[in-house]
């Protein structure tokens, strides 16, 4: 009996230790900083595009008027957007330009932490204003990344904040951060949920189960950005890619944690999202999902790839090399 109690206690002690290792081991903020740089750039571009018809999409009386959306089922108090309260066009443009400034700060890593919090709130405001209306997967990914970027020191590397510290004589390396690890872990787990449920939704569809879904997606003229009708002669290829997509999404949450299968899973993500970007005209969405997958990169790998470029930029800007 004593052995049973002791082994149970040991099991839970081990579990708690593993949990702590997973969540609370400080990590180099390089991965988080790289995602900030890329996601910040993507958010800047995404929201800049609204400028082409700001009043139409975001304005109070646009294609989906605020009053119209309020009548939609499920539009409760918790579905919020600052644009629900913005009426005059001049105010709309003022807020929009300020928002673009925030996204630019996030991209450049200027006042990074504050910019990350504001960028998240603004990104949610924009997307809730166009939900339903004109939102799609890109907005979901942008908001997911912004939400977790604000939890950690996303400007510790590859940022103007870092260069500013260097200019003031602080050349110390960014310390490993527990908050950076928590942010990255949340990003990774959220991404697993995204792929898992994306696969479950596909399993409800006959075309995904039969292996023809890729044809119907690729043969859609409105989506297509490069010719894909040649796939009509390759039903085996269509079936292979369709099934591969479903099985990859379904297995992602399980295989991505294993160091032997992780490379395969992540490179498949790059191939599938790269294909969506190239052939299906959703360059932004494809790239945003690839950026999210970078959360599985080890900080050392990130530094090996990005530090040489960052050093050259810092040498040019402040005369010192820094990552």
């Amino acid at each position: 009996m004593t052995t049973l109690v002791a082994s149970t206690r040991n099991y839970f002690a081990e579990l708690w230790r593993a949990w702590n290792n997973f969540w609370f081991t400080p990590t180099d903020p390089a991965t988080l900083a790289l995602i900030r740089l890329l996601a910040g750039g993507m958010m800047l571009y995404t929201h800049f595009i609204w400028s082409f018809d700001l009043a139409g999409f975001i304005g109070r009386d646009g294609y989906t008027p605020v009053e119209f959306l309020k009548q939609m089922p499920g539009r409760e108090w918790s579905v919020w957007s600052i644009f629900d309260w913005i009426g005059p066009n001049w105010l709309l443009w003022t807020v929009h330009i300020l928002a673009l400034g925030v996204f630019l700060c996030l991209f450049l890593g200027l006042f990074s932490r504050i910019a990350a919090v504001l960028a998240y709130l603004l990104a949610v405001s924009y997307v809730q204003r166009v939900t339903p209306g004109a939102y799609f997967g890109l907005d979901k990914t942008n908001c997911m990344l912004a939400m977790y970027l604000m939890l950690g020191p996303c400007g510790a590397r590859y940022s103007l904040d870092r260069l500013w510290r260097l200019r003031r004589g602080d050349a110390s390396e960014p310390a490993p951060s527990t908050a950076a690890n928590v942010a990255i872990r949340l990003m990774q787990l959220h991404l697993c949920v995204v792929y898992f449920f994306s696969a479950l939704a596909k399993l409800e569809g006959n075309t995904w189960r039969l292996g023809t879904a890729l044809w119907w997606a690729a043969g859609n003229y409105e989506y297509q950005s490069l010719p894909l009708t040649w796939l009509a002669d390759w039903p085996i290829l269509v079936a292979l890619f369709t099934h591969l997509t479903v099985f990859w999404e379904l297995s992602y949450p399980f295989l991505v944690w294993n160091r032997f299968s992780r490379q395969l899973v992540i490179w498949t993500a790059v191939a599938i999202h790269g294909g969506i970007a190239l052939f299906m005209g959703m360059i932004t969405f494809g790239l945003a999902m690839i950026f999210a997958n970078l959360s599985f990169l080890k900080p050392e790998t990130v530094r090996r790839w990005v530090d040489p470029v960052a050093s050259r930029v810092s040498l040019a800007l402040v005369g010192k090399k820094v990552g």
Partner: protein
Amino acid sequence: MSKQRPEPPPQPAGGEKKPAAPPAPDAKAKPAKAPKPKVPSPWPWGPFARVLVSLLVAFHLFVVFISPWEIQLRPSVVPMAEPGGPPLDAQGRPIPPQQFDPSKYPAQLPVLPMALTKYLHHYANLLYINNGYDFFSPDPGVSHQIRYEVFNSAGEKIADGQFPSRREQWPRLFYHRHMMLVEQSRDPMAAGQGWESAIAERLLEKHDGDRVRLVMIRHHLLTPQQVKDGGRIDGPATYEEIGVMDHQRTRPRAAEQLPTGGTP
């Protein structure tokens, strides 16, 4: 691209355990144990902070998980009938589920996800994690277009165009927003809510028109065999007109809203 998992850490911080009570004065003298060396915790955050953050991340991830679960199951409501044994009509033919008597066959509901999201969905809404992640599913579908013509008070055409249109909307993301606008307005959930009228009003405002005609179009997909037989995915035969709407301006013009003697 590899492991984030750190090396196995040393034993947890000594600070997490209660200090041993001092021995009673009359207790038998035991051989003195060598004091354990104090190993610093591998986790800089204290136990209280770690427990608190653990609870928060567990709650958050729980909501991240149940939101798509509930959203995906929401439209899957089916009558409570014996699986594989649908009721038969007088002629012995199976009755389609849509024609079931709801008093005899109440709906089967996704009870657990609904119960979990009943209150937690506000948290999901606030953070915008209320997503279904159902990309191109359950099946990739046909596309739609809206063609429009705007007329002035004299009945002259002053503008025309199409949503989405690669010629009219650039860059690609801007085109894609118009595409989503049309697709989401065609969603069965949005049917009958006057979305076309809202789009029409905006077009009138944009082009300062008095009347607008919207033509709703479905763009059908071709099978591989139809393509092999020479069909083009953008061929005229693939477009089907599914509705026409004429809409008169209802909102006053901006200038008409101003009080007399308003802006210079």
